[in-house]
């Protein structure tokens, strides 16, 4: 399969060159020439105003096997810390697998580290067909400079169609740097993916203010890049014994521009919201910082972690690490109790995967009730103390 020119139609206008997401079109005196970078994506054909380009599907039968390894595939960045894969990697692989199947392509994982051999099998068992592995002592810990250089290099070499990156603090630093270098689009904090009829990735995320979702497309540039917060997608089942292929990445010459002097873990990270089985969260409906104590008391009676909406974090009632939502943490506890929280979409995307959601709100029309398993229309200052009494009464029996 390749792009062919109807030279008699070509006006050498350059539209194809401008449209090419891979910089694979070079304008010559007789019309466009296609470099090895071409993936036959068809953007130039689409852009040509003179109908001078077409896709020659002659060799269609063998196109899949002829295609360079990786080109057109779905990739997941497999972030590891201290030699362990982060859960968000597996969560993304579940989505990645689904998209790859629909597109009829492979799922690749991009794995960087000091030593990564022990993680490769795990990635296969969670659905990777290929693991692109880059090993070097310098890559042991995540660092912006070298990781960005290796990812950019690998993408240029293998040209995946889609690249998904976990929205961790590292991922959110890496993804925009790489996307900018590649000159492609990047959608932050997606909560859902689909494909349009042309195979473009439809990336859904909450939109600014109010209860709206937006679906974003990046039709003319590749790869299509997106970040996704942890716990937004479920972790797929592991398939023991599943096999795949390891491809050793050829590493670019490192150009370091930073030094990490110290890594301090476990300090100041705040409440262990992400792992808690129960989260009690408070919002502006509590009325005052003093009343926020009610939430803390309820949490302590239940052995729960304390969460909050952004409204009260912004107001300074409680510190940022407690914030749940699009800009805070995503949580998925067994029980989530929302007290005086309206249920704005930016909050909901951070807790909607909780197994049981309880909402206590004085406004019967508050959107939070639409996702609540149990809803209580009432005043927090009355319901919470009553609930604490119930809990204490039953546990002291």
């Amino acid at each position, binding site marked *: 399969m390749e792009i062919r020119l109807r030279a008699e139609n070509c006006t050498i206008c350059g539209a194809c060159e*401008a449209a090419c997401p891979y910089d694979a079109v070079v304008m010559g005196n007789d019309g466009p020439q296609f470099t090895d970078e071409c993936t036959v994506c068809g953007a130039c054909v689409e852009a040509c105003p003179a109908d001078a380009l077409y896709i020659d599907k002659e060799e269609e039968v063998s196109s899949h096997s002829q295609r360079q390894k990786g080109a057109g595939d779905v990739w997941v960045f497999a972030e590891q810390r201290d030699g362990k894969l982060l859960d968000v990697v597996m969560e993304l692989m579940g989505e990645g697998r689904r998209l790859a199947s629909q597109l009829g392509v492979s799922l690749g994982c991009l794995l960087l580290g000091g030593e990564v051999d022990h993680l490769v099998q795990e990635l296969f068992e969670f659905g990777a067909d290929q693991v692109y592995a880059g090993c070097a002592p310098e890559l042991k810990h995540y660092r912006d400079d070298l990781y960005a250089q290796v990812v950019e290099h690998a993408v240029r070499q293998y040209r995946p169609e889609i690249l998904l990156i976990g929205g961790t603090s590292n991922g959110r630093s890496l993804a925009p*740097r790489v*996307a900018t270098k590649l000159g492609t689009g990047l959608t932050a904090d997606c909560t859902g993916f689909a494909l349009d009829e042309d195979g473009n990735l439809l990336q859904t995320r909450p939109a600014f203010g109010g209860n709206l979702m937006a679906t974003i497309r990046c039709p003319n540039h590749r790869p299509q890049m997106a970040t996704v917060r942890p716990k937004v997608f479920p972790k797929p089942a592991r398939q023991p014994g599943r096999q795949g292929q390891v491809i050793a990445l050829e590493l670019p010459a490192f150009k370091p521009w930073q030094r990490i002097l110290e*890594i301090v873990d476990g300090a100041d990270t705040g409440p262990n919201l992400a792992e808690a089985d129960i989260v009690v969260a408070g919002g502006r409906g509590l009325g005052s910082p003093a009343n926020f104590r009610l939430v803390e008391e309820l949490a302590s009676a239940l052995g729960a972690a304390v969460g909050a909406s952004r409204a009260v974090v912004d107001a300074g009632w409680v510190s940022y690490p407690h914030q749940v939502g699009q800009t805070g943490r995503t949580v998925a506890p067994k029980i989530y109790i929302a007290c005086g929280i309206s249920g704005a979409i930016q909050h909901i995307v951070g807790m909607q995967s909780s197994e049981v959601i*309880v909402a206590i709100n004085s406004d019967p029309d508050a959107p939070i009730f639409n996702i609540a398993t149990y809803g209580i229309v009432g005043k927090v200052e009355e319901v919470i103390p009553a609930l604490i009494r119930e809990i204490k009464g039953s546990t002291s029996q």
Partner: protein
Amino acid sequence: MHIVACIKQVPDPSQARIDRETGLVIREGVDKIINPYDLHALEEAVRIKEARGGKVTALSMGPRAAEQVLRDAVAMGADQGILLSDRRFAGADTLATSYTLARAIAKLGDVDLVICGKQAVDGDTAQVGPGIAANLDLPHITQVRKIRELTDSKLVAEKLTDRGYEVVEVSLPAVITVVKELNEPRIPGLRGMMRAKKAEIPVWGPEDIEAEADRIGLKGSPTQVWRTFEPERHRKGEMLEGTPEEQAAALWQRLRAL
């Protein structure tokens, strides 16, 4: 030392609305404020200038009305404010925005440090800071919560991570993005306000920054809003009725059974 603080004017998040047709934010009739994180960026820039000497330039891309946040910046102690405003800049996604801001920084020429907020509260992408750095081929550090050391040639900062923090050293010039823990933004004094009122705010267009026409605005934006929609709304849960005591009892009975 020449420090650039990138500040964005955003609609007050509590008043925001969206145009259902275009999927774009309706900017009319909504109060505009300086992006809260950018106040911390500005404050840090001014503190560095006060401690070491030098100058602070506040830079913003947006409609003409965004001039206001640059005046606010001057009131807080910035030496000058520059507005990137032109019809052709409109509709920029983060790629086009970072390119445009980077071009302006390149035009300023002698910049040692660029400070951005961690993210803008309207789009919440946190992409523009690293994007500017990538455009200029400069080091970047995200989520800086403390500057430990700053000399003419290097910066050592504490960067917030998911598990704690890291101490990172980069050479200057560099780009950092900052979190709220970094500092407490000042309230401008009367003198600052007077200065702000009189300040000239130059407006730069694509030609002034020698920007390539197909890398700015809507044209330079690979991502497109395809559609917007309201999330599904259906009440599937059980409402617990009665007095607060009855409601609490009913709830506890159900939670205990889990």
